[in-house]
């Protein structure tokens, strides 16, 4: 029997420390007005010292499992996939630790590294495991602690990024028409432009040597203007290609859940697609850019606000370092976000 992968649970978690633009204005030569007009961001959450990505992932994963009415015990899911740019350690992956802490037993667990597109890459991989018959249920998490890799001398990135985690449970169903079924995914990359978004050190390109590494090499860096243009173009083209493939006219899309990087990117994306701007879901004003956690956090926020109603047509699209990008489509299921 053919199986389809449907969203059956949704959860999210933000660390309690909320950092406003006004607070950042005491640390950098900036202002609430400057940050708001250029990004749309008013506040973000940063994890306290000692709190790592895995901690946020456990909280979001727990809530997604609760939303799907699944217990924290072996057999609840068959795999845990964690998208992150900020794993707890370079080695091993963070997902096995998260699975163990959630009490999920010895399930398959692995990380996905596609920076801000990571959640969509993870969703695609998890969906494929289900449609291939390798798994019945998969916990898919996007979690980040960008506050740990921000360069304190780089005002531009320091005001943009926040920490957080979001998760969904994908569940197998034989019913292709069930709300929540992933109807299609489009993914892409362009490694020739990897330097636009990069952490130079910490990998095999910069071999481990005795002594302290140069802290500058461990910080995240981004060429913002080029990234802006690429983000709009790639998310727009990926979304258009996906809509063509699944036969949805652009104006039939009820909600466009784009990667929450900058509200001006989301507006330009809607304009490029020919969608009214109000169909773009926006929560970055309260959470900033949370990279791989961005899409599930936006979904949780919109679901909790009642914006996403059962049966509405939802398109997800993201863009990130790599370069990577992607889009996915589903009709919204009947679920309670946790």
């Amino acid at each position, binding site marked *: 029997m053919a199986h389809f992968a449907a969203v059956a649970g949704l959860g999210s978690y933000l660390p309690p420390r909320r950092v406003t633009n006004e607070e950042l204005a005491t640390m950098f030569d900036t202002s609430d007005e400057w940050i708001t*007009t*250029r990004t749309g961001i008013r506040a973000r959450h940063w994890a306290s010292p000692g709190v790592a990505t895995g901690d946020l992932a456990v909280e979001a994963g727990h809530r997604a499992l609760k939303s799907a009415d699944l217990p924290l015990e072996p057999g609840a899911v068959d795999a845990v996939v964690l998208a992150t740019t900020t794993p707890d350690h370079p080695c091993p992956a963070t997902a096995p630790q998260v699975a163990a802490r959630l009490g999920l037993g010895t399930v398959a667990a692995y990380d996905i590294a596609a920076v801000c597109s990571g959640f969509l890459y993870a969703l695609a991989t998890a969906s494929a495991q289900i449609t291939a018959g390798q798994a019945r249920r998969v916990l898919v998490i996007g979690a980040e602690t960008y506050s740990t890799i921000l360069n304190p001398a780089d005002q531009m990135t320091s005001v943009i990024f926040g920490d957080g985690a979001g998760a969904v449970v994908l569940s197998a169903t034989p019913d292709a028409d069930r709300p929540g079924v992933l109807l299609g995914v489009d993914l892409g990359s362009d490694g020739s432009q990897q330097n636009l978004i990069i952490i130079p050190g910490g990998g095999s390109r910069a071999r481990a040597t005795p002594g302290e590494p140069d802290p500058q090499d461990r910080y995240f860096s981004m060429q913002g*203007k*080029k990234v*802006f*243009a690429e983000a*709009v*173009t790639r998310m*727009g083209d990926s979304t258009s290609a996906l809509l063509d493939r699944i036969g949805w006219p652009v104006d039939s899309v009820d909600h466009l859940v784009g990667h929450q990087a900058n509200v*001006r990117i989301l507006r*330009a994306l809607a*304009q*490029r697609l020919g969608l009214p701007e109000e169909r773009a879901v926006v929560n970055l004003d309260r959470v900033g850019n949370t990279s791989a956690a961005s899409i599930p956090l936006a979904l949780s926020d919109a679901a909790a606000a009642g914006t996403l109603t059962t049966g509405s047509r939802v398109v997800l699209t993201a863009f990130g370092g790599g370069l990577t990008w992607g889009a996915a489509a589903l009709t919204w299921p009947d679920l309670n976000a946790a």
Partner: protein
Amino acid sequence: MSTQTQTLTDQLLNLIVTKYEAPADTTAETSFDLLDFDSLVLVEVAVALSGWYNITVSHDELNDAGNIAGTVALLEGKGVQV
């Protein structure tokens, strides 16, 4: 000025006045530097023009073009016809 050049000029002036708050008396020769744009506006304009005319144009090229007249010449050089 050809009809094509005039039409393109009018389209671009309309874009920056209505969408990016350039002053109503902006002309094709007004330098972008005088329009009080923030650092992202030329990026947004470049993205919009790339989509409209199905070409690739960057904010660096718009910076170099300097004004709407220069931008029209740039776009015509890329084969844009209206």
